[in-house]
């Protein structure tokens, strides 16, 4: 094995950049979590290691760029996949001019639309899980929390997470970004579905704790 360069120590997994049959690859290793009970830990890691590549493959079929999977090693909870050279959308959004930001978000919305159209829920739609490559393709990574689901509820939760991620990381232009995302989403799934997903998002938000809209100001 060539040398492994730790490029990201995430919460769930560590990403190593290495070579595999003279290709640059990413090895995503779900290391045991010492805080968890060993049985529970193994169960969670095995499940996610098996499901993630399946979802990534399905996403690719749906027309959403994802890294190509080369090897899945269940026992070591490691996935070997294509290395995408590019920049995280998380960094880009704050750097680029408004028009480009709008276009990025529009495109992201389209891609989320395609995922949902094909019954795929990403489960962690944050801008750190999207990479723009040199050709202008946006790759979606980290399907570790994803699932197959066509229900409105799951779609709503998926996009509401995206909205929240925008608000917490890019609050200065979260609103315009999310509007563009929904515009792109509507382009794929149609106005009717987009509307019902938006309504669902509102419903989910109201379910949340201490939401402003649900707030009734109590005057003594």
């Amino acid at each position, binding site marked *: 094995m060539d040398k492994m360069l730790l490029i990201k*120590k*995430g*919460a*769930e997994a560590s990403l190593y950049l290495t070579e595999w049959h003279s290709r640059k690859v990413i090895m995503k290793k779900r290391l045991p*979590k*010492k*805080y*968890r*009970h060993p*049985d*529970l830990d193994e*169960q*969670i890691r095995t499940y996610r290691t098996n499901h993630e590549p399946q979802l990534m493959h399905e996403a690719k079929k749906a027309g959403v760029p994802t890294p190509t999977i080369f090897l899945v090693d269940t026992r070591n909870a490691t996935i070997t996949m294509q290395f995408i050279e590019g920049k995280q959308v998380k960094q880009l959004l704050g750097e680029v001019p408004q028009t480009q930001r709008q276009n990025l978000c529009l495109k992201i919305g389209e891609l989320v639309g395609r995922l949902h159209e094909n019954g795929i829920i990403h*489960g*962690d*739609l*944050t801008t*750190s899980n999207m990479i723009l490559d040199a050709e202008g393709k946006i790759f979606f990574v980290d399907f570790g*929390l994803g699932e197959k689901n066509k229900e409105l509820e799951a779609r709503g*939760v998926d996009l509401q*997470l995206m909205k*929240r991620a925008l608000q*917490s990381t890019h*609050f200065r232009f979260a609103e315009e970004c999310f509007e563009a995302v929904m515009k792109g989403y509507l382009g794929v799934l149609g106005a009717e579905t987009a509307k019902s997903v938006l309504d669902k998002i509102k419903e989910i938000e109201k*379910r*949340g*704790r*201490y*939401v*402003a809209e*649900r*707030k*009734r*100001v*109590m*005057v*003594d």
Partner: protein
Amino acid sequence: MTGKKAKEHYCLGIESSADDFGVGVTTFSGNVLANVISAHMPEKGGIHPREAARHHAEAASKVLEEAFTKSGIRPQDLSVIAFSQGPGLGPCLRTGATVARALSSYLNIPLVGVNHCIAHIEIGKLKSGAKDPATLYVSGGNTIVAAFDSGRYRVFGETLDVALGNCLDVFAREAGLHQKVGMPFGAIVEKLAEKGKRLIPLPYTVKGMDTSFSGLLTAAANLVKKGEYKLEDMCYSLQETAFSMVSEVTERALAHTEKKEVLLTGGVAANKRLQSMIKIIAEEHEAQFCVVPSEFAIDNGAMIAWTGVLAYTNGIATPIEESFVKLRWRLEEVEVPWIKCS
């Protein structure tokens, strides 16, 4: 410096958002002089807001008196009154607010409405020495992962339904356990869990940065009623599963924010198993593990007083006509001028 000692200023804080009525007194420099709590413990069932509020109204004068005695100051020594303005249960919050307004107008000193969730974070920081942590705030009413970013505390993850502490409490009640003063449900479950060995599979639900405990609670409650497993093993499995969920979310927030400290605060922070889990996470991310001391983990008046000091000394006061309670006051709505932008 001159040899003359500067006059110390004091803040009295009132906490009444749920089942505890607490009064704390702190100095402006962060010394806690008194922290008196009276807990309302219903015979059976959960908190009934009206019953809890009645308890608060009855306990108020005694708790106030004790706080003054313990702190050794007189009412006229106070510079400001702080109270828990929300979030919480309406009747309970209103009882505390009424006491606070009365004191403020009688003593003719300013009033400061404090956000209860922020207060849990601030007392955790004061008592553990954390400066800018990623915080896991877990209690009977809240399960929040928050961190300061660009002028506000931001919520990175939270429960989508019931709170972690609530999940443990309801499970304990369903299991037929009874809580006592000094031995709340959480502590009883923790004690039983220490004797548990077998991990029973239970639903583990993490959605992105959020957690959901309702499915876990239903499954655990159904299993415990069937009586198939030992109660110790049930408590153990419930704790292992639920705590792993919040730990995973905390670790995600820590990795995302790259903070150098992790703070564990709120009532459930007193749980040793949860502490050990969060400590491991902190170590693995080379962050410092900070935990609020038990006395300040539960709802208490000192945390309200201290947060009142922070707000008041940074130009925030709440006129009486704006002192209505805010039942659903989210922590990211609160201005925190005492934290300098990072």
